[in-house]
């Protein structure tokens, strides 16, 4: 039998910022989101079904025959990811707001940016899982091989940029009166550089364009990711405090 007094003493925490506790907090947020999501699967199934519906609509709206397919595949994919992405971002932050959980997170003695990075990583994982399912479906439907390392890299970089800005903006939009409709209106205009660069780079890989032509949008994607993660990291405190 453990002595009660020593046991209680051992759970005391100090709150002095330490690197280990920062990473542990980020990991805790990710673990919590994945755990809850793999149990309920509500966010994930909504994103996936929505993605497939968008592709279906594009199929008829654009008459995706063999000729047009080549030029519009990248655009269709990114439009699908963007729409499905906002759905997931919105829901993921609404869960934090609903039962006051955001306050619970903010009460923990860790730097607030740990919460931001935790949410970014779990949102990114949800988005990547949806993308990983959409790609083979699209490949099978239209007989295009989308499993190219270059394309995967672009999808990763594009999703990072999209999710990092989207997570910041969703933390803002859930605190407004118009929370359900505001996120896409806020997110799309500022995410245009990442979407356009991603479409351009994806197209380059799919059409076998020259490396020099792909490098430019790829650099733009990396620049966008770096700039916006840095800014979000700096301003996230102002989003959650009163």
């Amino acid at each position, binding site marked *: 039998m453990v002595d009660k007094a020593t046991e209680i003493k051992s*759970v005391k925490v*100090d709150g*002095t910022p330490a690197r280990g506790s920062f990473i542990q907090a980020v990991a805790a947020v990710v673990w919590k989101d994945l755990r809850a999501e793999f149990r309920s699967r509500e966010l994930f199934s909504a994103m996936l079904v929505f993605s497939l519906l968008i592709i279906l609509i594009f199929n008829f709206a654009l008459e995706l025959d063999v000729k047009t397919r080549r030029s519009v595949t990248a655009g269709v994919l990114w439009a699908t990811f963007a729409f499905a992405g906002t759905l997931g971002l919105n829901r993921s932050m609404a869960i934090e707001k609903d039962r006051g959980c955001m*306050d*619970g997170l903010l*009460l923990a003695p*860790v*730097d607030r940016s740990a919460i931001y990075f935790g949410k970014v990583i779990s949102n990114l994982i949800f988005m990547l899982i949806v993308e990983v399912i959409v790609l083979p479906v699209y490949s099978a439907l239209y007989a295009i091989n989308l499993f190219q390392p270059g394309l995967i890299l672009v999808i990763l970089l594009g999703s990072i940029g999209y999710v990092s800005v989207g997570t910041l903006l969703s933390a803002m939009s859930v605190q407004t009166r118009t929370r359900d409709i505001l996120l896409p209106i806020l997110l799309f205009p500022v995410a245009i550089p990442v979407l356009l660069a991603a479409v351009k780079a994806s197209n380059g890989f799919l059409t076998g364009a020259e490396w020099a032509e792909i490098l430019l949008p790829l650099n733009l994607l990396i620049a966008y990711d770096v700039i916006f993660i840095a800014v979000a990291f700096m301003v996230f405190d102002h989003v959650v405090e009163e």
Partner: protein
Amino acid sequence: MITVKKLVKRFGLKTVLRGVDFEVQPGEFVALLGPNGAGKTTFLRILASLSRPSLGQIRIAGYRLPDQAAQVRARLGVVSHLPLLYGDLTAEENLRFYARMYGIPHYEARLTEVLEMTGLEARRHDLVRTYSRGMQQRLAIGRAVLHDPDVMLFDEPYTGLDQDASSMLDDVLKTVAAQGRTVVMTSHDLARAEDLATRFDILSRGLISASASSAELKQTNLLSFYKQALAG
């Protein structure tokens, strides 16, 4: 344990707290009473480091707010009328998550201890979504004491609870207070407050207008003291 000097909080042009002075000794259980809109929740949110003061000094457990917020948060347990729990996680998972967020070392034994204290040991593997309001609130208290805080803040913990749930919550609150913690609780339920607290402060129109210890209240009852404080 808690020292607040000339605390002012403004929301834009509206001044909610206008120079609150407030002092709590270690081990005291202070009930913060007052009508709706008096600024009780705002005051507690500032103590909890969730809201920034506009002016004034705050010290909790020897640390200043807001610049030493992380140290203060490590010594603070907060229960609000919202449970601050995830419905799609089990009770145990919720506690484990917060234990990691707080950086508690060797937390597994502590989880069981807290679940026993709140009487939820038998349902530790059930989703919090399936819990009744009262059980959620008890788990919320378990979450708040997980890191063995010196100071506890309760914001209207009885909101939405029925008679049975309230009296079970009473027991848990008494256990928490008996462990030598300093407690500040807001409430508009005078009877519950009278039962638990050692001191009663009245917050009205953004100021602490009266204060009395339970010993001083022996002669008169809490209700007439409360009415007098609000009238004066």
